[in-house]
């Protein structure tokens, strides 16, 4: 059986093409174009390194390119490449920079620094501050129950009954409401931080990184501090994650 040999140049192109198609169409949900561009750039970078690390391989890689431009018999191909390649780049550039109806991609800051007054706060329903007695276990369960009631009266419309950010109104917001089951949301945060975010909502976000996209209401207008702590107990309990603590 004849061994099928493909030159390093063409195999690199195939690798690049297949990787692109896989990332673009197979990975679900689709990758944002910024990430796709970054990964394709990395693959190109890796191909460059692999090819140029050895002299012979580099020569082999360049052979088809040299062959194309130095072979007098390939005038038609040379013309096609010389016109087609810059044209393709031009089309890409035109598409990339032409104004679109949809808003451009944005660089969101998701974790701004909290104001001083919230730093180091402990949930008084879970554990009391320095010198205080720890709340009773039975009380904690009661607070979680109350937190659940508050959650379903106020929060679940956006954050969902499964605490996954897929509430009835979720689709109306950009960005989507936080998914508490995601390890990257409340599991990464201390309760004091969550308390600040609930209490002051979107308008309470700091001046840095403005303008903010947050539809979170100012809950201190509707809930007491104790109710906010109760709802915090519930969302951690319900999402099955632990609040972040410092050693």
């Amino acid at each position, binding site marked *: 059986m004849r061994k099928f040999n493909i030159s390093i140049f063409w195999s690199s192109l195939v690798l690049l093409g297949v990787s692109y198609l896989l990332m673009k169409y197979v990975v679900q949900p689709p990758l944002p174009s910024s990430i796709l561009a970054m990964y394709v750039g*990395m693959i190109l970078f890796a191909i460059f390194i692999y090819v140029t690390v050895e002299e012979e391989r580099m020569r082999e890689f360049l052979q088809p390119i040299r062959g194309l431009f130095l072979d007098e018999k390939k005038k038609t191909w040379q013309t096609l490449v010389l016109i087609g390649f810059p044209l393709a780049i031009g089309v890409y550039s035109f598409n990339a920079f032409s104004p679109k109806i949809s808003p451009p991609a944005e*660089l969101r800051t998701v974790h701004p*620094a*909290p104001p001083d007054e919230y730093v*180091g706060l402990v949930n008084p329903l879970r554990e009391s501050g320095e010198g205080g007695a720890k709340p009773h276990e039975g009380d904690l369960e009661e607070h979680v129950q109350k937190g659940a009631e508050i959650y379903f009266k106020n929060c679940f419309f956006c954050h969902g009954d499964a605490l996954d950010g897929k509430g009835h109104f979720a689709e109306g917001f950009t960005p989507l409401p936080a*998914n508490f089951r995601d390890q*990257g949301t409340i599991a*990464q945060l201390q309760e004091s931080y969550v308390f600040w975010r609930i209490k002051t909502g979107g308008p309470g976000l700091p001046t*840095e990184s403005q303008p903010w996209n947050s539809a979170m209401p100012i809950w201190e207008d509707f809930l007491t501090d104790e109710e906010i702590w109760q709802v915090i107990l519930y969302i951690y309990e319900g999402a099955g994650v632990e609040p972040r603590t410092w050693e």
Partner: protein
Amino acid sequence: MENIEYRISNIESRIASRLPASRFLLLALFSLFMLFALSAFAQEPAYRHFPLIGSRNAIWIISQLHLMFAAFILGVPIFAVIVEYIGVRTKDPKFDRLAKEFTKLLLIAFSTTATFGAIMLFLLIGLYPNFFNYMSSIFFPTFVIYSLLFFGEGFSLYLYWYSWDKLMNKKWLHITFGIMLNVFGTLLMIIANTWVTFMMSPGGIDEQGALISLWGAINNFTWIPINIHRFIANICFGGFIVGAYAAYRFLSSKTDEERAHYDWMGYVGNFIGTAALIPLPFAGYWLGKEIYEYSEPLMIRMMGGELSWLFIIQAILIGVLFIGANYYLWIALSRIKGGERFRKYVKYMLFLLVICFAIWMTPHSLVASLEEARKIGATHHPLLGVFGVMSAKNTAVNLIILTTFFSFMLYQRANKIETVTWAKKGKIAQIIILGSAAGVVIFYGIYGYYVPAAVRIGFSVYQVSAVLAAMILVTILSSLILRGATSMGTIEWGKMPARSQYTLIVLALTIVTLMGLMGYIRSATRADWHVYRVLRDTSPEAFTPTIAYATQMISIITFIFFAFICFIFWLGHMGEKQ
């Protein structure tokens, strides 16, 4: 006539009648002017404006340039003395020549560093007098010590350089001068670090900011970790800049002998740079932890707020450093007889590095359009979100470090044939050790997703310990396995393609940019405070610049630094020709 006289007298009388009023007005205006003007003169202005670019940018550029040169003149003597010592031990004159060449670069860079330091001081006094007064009220005794140490550093540098040939037969005395130079230099850095770290995590003061304890102000939260971090980073910085110098000299060499020498120098520069780069992420992690312990908002602003985007750039730069250093080594295998045996591993190492690099630089919050965010349908992408957290990042960087170490290991034994009877078993043991370390790293990386954050943070210690232990054990085993090894051929120094030298220049460019970037991040974390929560910056330039603005400034500073460095390289080259 009478009529005219009458008119004149009438005008005179009118003028006379108005004079007291106009005088009074003049008097009032002058008094008002004096009131405001002299009161302004009486008070020291809090800020002065630097023309065209503004005060903040002026200080930013000058202090960053000063720091870059300082890193160079502090890092290079460390390995110059080590290389000289190796020369004494091995009795190989090429080490002595290399150490001397390092020191020559140092000599030219020393005065540039001092000049930038002086300009920075003048600018601080002139543009930020209140801030400087406050810092003087806390740290004046250290200013005096700093000046004395500066003399010490200058004298020991000149002593080290000018006694080089005279003390060829008294090398131990000469090395002692070199050690003195390092001691003075390191102490200078440690003192300057007290001022910088105090601005970030002030200590030793009361609620009004008045000094209670000088030692408390010096020994603030971030002082020790930044001393360690900068000490290692300076060696890394010096190594890569020396590598770039060697590359420049290699590319402009006319003879094979010169090419061989500068190829070797480039290799040594890259080795030192990479060896120091390996522990740097751990030192950075410790610094971050201390910042967090001092102030949670400070750390969150740095790594969770708007500055966090700059950490994506940091990840890319660190990735370029590691991959570039590996790439250089892989190319270098071609100049060693026997190196071709290990080429087959390159693709696997490259694959691993690229995968880790991709994870390392994947952001937690994605840059996505509205349409793309809708398609993702959640706050985080289910796949990419996994890569965005510290468990993934720590795993990736530890595996990158292990892979880089493996590249060095292969390079080291490229032309060696082991003669010890247990060589095969020893190599299997090395593979098991490295594999186990990788296993520990991956295990804790995955396990980290299932435990609370406080527990997860502790896992990084296990990961780092496994990697460090593996590197130490494998190095010891290597030295035992290679004892009495025979050679397949010598290293053909100078037989390197030009792209390997451009890689060294890229590494230097990357480390300079990285230093500029991280310096900015650390400084910008304080936001509108000169001294965090003690002395507020009320100047018109107290805003945090946009990411684009900051990165452009960092690029400009990198460009200026390289312009100076090229000039210094050229001077060194010219001096040699003469």
